[in-house]
């Protein structure tokens, strides 16, 4: 679609127009569609954020009539929407929704889909943009993409676009990610592909860019000369919550580190982009990801630790260990905890260790980035008994309470110059009373608008897997070493300390 003239009416509007669109959800009977996508679409409709013509088509394997599926979707929105549904809006969203059932590799499904989309174009009086949202199990991604190509649905009509949104996980390892990229890019141009990592849709993650690039305060110290180490934590206090089927095949490294945590690392360490524009931003993220040297296989034990939770007590309640969970093999080697030490080989970050850790059934839920600065070079106050002086630490909390805290040394009231650390805290919740939009609402709207800024590019996906791949391989090849265990409700395994540098310690959760 080529835009020929500017639209002078959009100036000053908070909500930019979205081209009239037909959104096709593959895997519409799945958990993601019901818990996230349909409620997100309802909320967009409630706010008046959907395009002037918006049509919804659901595709899935289960047999349902249009009316049956509309009733199911209505129940999902009523249960999971963050705003109380307005019956008239909900009815307007769902009453014309089409449902197509069939196998994802069945040509007739795509023929029917093509007819349905043509009818919707006809009804609108012009070609609608088409967004195909792949919310299926990952093994169907290449199948659906290929069928979309075979049926010509990857091509847009005049003045409209065709796009595909692909959920995570994008690949299982580097080789499978490359293969999937190749399959997808055989059918769609990269500009049509939107790989979702919903973490990037969170306001908190986007705020990291505001924090870094809208404040001159931090840039001078944001480098190896002042930063001693960085610690990124994504701790969960829950177990696998009945998702053994998925989790046994994934593990903590694939589930959180390969995507969310490395994205946080990239946003934290990339160079400032020249503009907040999709490719400029992704170019910078790619550069820093490519500067992370993947470990050799024999180095993995020195820089990565895996572990599983054992039975323990969480919130005063006894909970089972991972291997005792339903659906988990009693000799499972899937990690529920992973800790890594990474280095970025570039001018800014050379020599600074980046520690990443994630785990389930830890003592509390927190996602945070702690940047510890180097100590002051000379402590003149030491003679006064200032033993409490600590290096400054900047902590960016992503959840549960989004904010920034900076630790400073301050004088203890009294006649002597004694220092102790105090915190200067900023909580987003106290400064912006408005509610943050749900990540999926933002990302669906961006995909319909064609703005890929918060989506992952093909080369970025491969760079992310490239960092993780040697660790996956080393862990897969090691079938005999015991997997360290940590008690549920604890701080994690003691073995995680082994990858830390001298005098370094994990922050307490």
């Amino acid at each position, binding site marked *: *679609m080529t835009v020929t003239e500017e639209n*002078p*009416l*959009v100036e000053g509007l908070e909500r930019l127009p979205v081209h009239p669109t037909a959104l096709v959800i593959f895997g519409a009977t799945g958990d993601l569609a019901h818990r996230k996508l349909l409620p997100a679409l309802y909320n967009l409709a*409630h*706010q008046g954020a959907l395009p002037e013509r*918006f049509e919804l088509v659901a595709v899935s394997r289960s047999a349902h009539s249009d009316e049956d599926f509309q009733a199911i979707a209505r129940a999902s929105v009523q249960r999971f929407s963050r705003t109380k549904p307005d019956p008239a809006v909900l009815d307007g969203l769902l009453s014309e929704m089409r449902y197509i059932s069939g196998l994802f590799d069945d040509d007739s499904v795509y023929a029917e889909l093509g007819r349905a989309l043509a009818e919707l174009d006809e009804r609108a*009086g012009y070609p609608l943009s088409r967004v195909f949202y792949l919310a299926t199990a990952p093994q169907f991604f290449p199948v659906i993409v290929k069928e979309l190509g075979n049926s010509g649905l990857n091509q847009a009509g005049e003045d409209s676009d065709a796009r595909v949104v692909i959920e995570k996980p994008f690949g299982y390892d580097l080789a499978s990610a490359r293969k999937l990229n190749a399959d997808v890019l055989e059918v769609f141009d990269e500009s049509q592909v939107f790989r979702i990592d919903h973490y990037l849709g969170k306001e908190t993650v986007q705020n990291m860019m505001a924090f870094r690039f809208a404040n001159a305060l931090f840039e001078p110290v944001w480098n190896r000369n002042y930063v001693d180490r960085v610690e990124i934590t994504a701790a969960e206090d829950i177990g696998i919550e009945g998702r053994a089927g998925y989790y046994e095949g994934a593990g903590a490294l694939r589930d959180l580190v390969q995507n969310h945590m490395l994205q946080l690392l990239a946003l934290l360490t990339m160079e400032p982009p020249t503009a907040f524009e999709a490719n400029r931003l992704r170019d910078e993220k790619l550069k820093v990801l490519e500067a992370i040297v993947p470990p050799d296989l024999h180095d993995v034990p020195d820089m990565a630790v895996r572990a599983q939770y054992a039975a323990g007590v969480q919130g005063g309640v006894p909970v089972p260990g991972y291997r005792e969970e339903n659906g988990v093999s009693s000799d499972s080697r899937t990690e529920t905890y992973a800790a890594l030490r990474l280095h970025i080989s570039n001018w800014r970050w050379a020599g600074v260790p980046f520690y990443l850790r994630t785990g389930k059934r830890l003592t509390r839920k927190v996602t945070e980035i702690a940047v510890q600065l180097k100590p002051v070079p000379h402590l003149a106050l030491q003679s006064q008994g200032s033993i409490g002086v600590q290096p400054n630490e900047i902590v960016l909390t992503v959840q549960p309470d989004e904010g920034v805290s900076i630790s400073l040394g301050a004088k203890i009231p009294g006649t002597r110059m004694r220092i102790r650390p105090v915190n200067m805290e900023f909580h987003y919740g*106290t400064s912006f009373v408005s509610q943050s939009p749900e990540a999926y609402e933002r990302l669906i709207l961006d995909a319909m608008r064609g703005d890929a800024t918060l989506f992952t590019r093909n080369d970025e996906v491969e760079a992310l897997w490239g960092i993780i791949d040697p660790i996956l391989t080393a862990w897969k090849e090691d079938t005999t070493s015991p997997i360290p265990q940590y008690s549920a409700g604890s701080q994690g395994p003691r073995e995680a300390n082994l990858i830390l540098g001298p005098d370094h310690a994990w922050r307490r959760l």
Partner: protein
Amino acid sequence: MSEDVWSERDTTPDAIDDALREMLHERHTANQALVPARVLNLVVVVDRSWKGEIANRLERVGRYHASRTILCAVEPGRSTMDARVVMSYEEPSGDGVGVILEHVEIDLGEMHLVNLESVIDPIRAAEIPTMIWCPHGHLEATRSLLPITDAILIDSDDESEPAAALARAADLLESAYVVDLAWLRTTPWRERLAATFDPPGRRPLIGQIGRVAARHQASSTASATLLAGWLASRLNWEPACLDPQAHGELHGVAHAGDHDVEVRLCRSDQLVPGLTGVTVAVPEGWSLSLDRASGGLCAQRRSEDGTESTWKVLGASRGEGGILGEGVRQALLRDPTYRPALACARAFCPVAAPL
């Protein structure tokens, strides 16, 4: 929701400020996870007899509460100040923080309004923006507070004379950022009109618009005029004063370079303030009408070949509470299109527009 309350008769701004500090200190000491919101001071000056009605409106702004609301209730003849401070909060569960909202109510007299700044300045939270709202007039209060004001909340639809309301908005705009609820009532309509002409195939139609009609509730002439003013300012039309017609209608033309644009603002029977519908049309026969309907707007498009289609554009009504909440939120933003739209709206609006 829990509350801490302090009150004092015949009090002073310093005493109120001391009470606020003491209450915050006590609450934070009792629970360090409770922290005061620091977003916006909202100073509201009202007639004491209508205090409850305004308090109810503020209750309905939902999540867009100002962090410190200072409600000044003006009572004729009063010479002393009575104050009540309410600090409301919800104890956080788990590791989270809880946000404290502060509400200060001051009963004062008309004599205090001329120097109201000296009352409010010590009480407002420092380092955060201050917005004022005087829904019952009290111009002397507005004038006094201007030096400490970042944004002024007004409702041009509230005034009986639209031309005077728009002139007042323009006047205030010289001193502070103005958030006009009459303008915010047009937001969904502006968004939809912008979206209508956004597909590349329709953009050439923007320059060909030959007719605009805005339908509005009887008291919302200012909103309708601002919508017309917005189109004129964005599309470089030269607005001309509209002529009053029967039934409160305003009718006239704007000059758009090589052609004229017919502008018509008509009343409708709607009960809630704001617009009820908009029609834009080009001479070749293309037109689009948007009208309020349950669950959104009913859109009706007529193509150049005469074919018509009707559909619904989804969206829930924000209600007046939602619009006031949006007004509070807008204090922290800046809309560069209001000023030029207001200038064009004033040019459209006859001095004695019908009520």
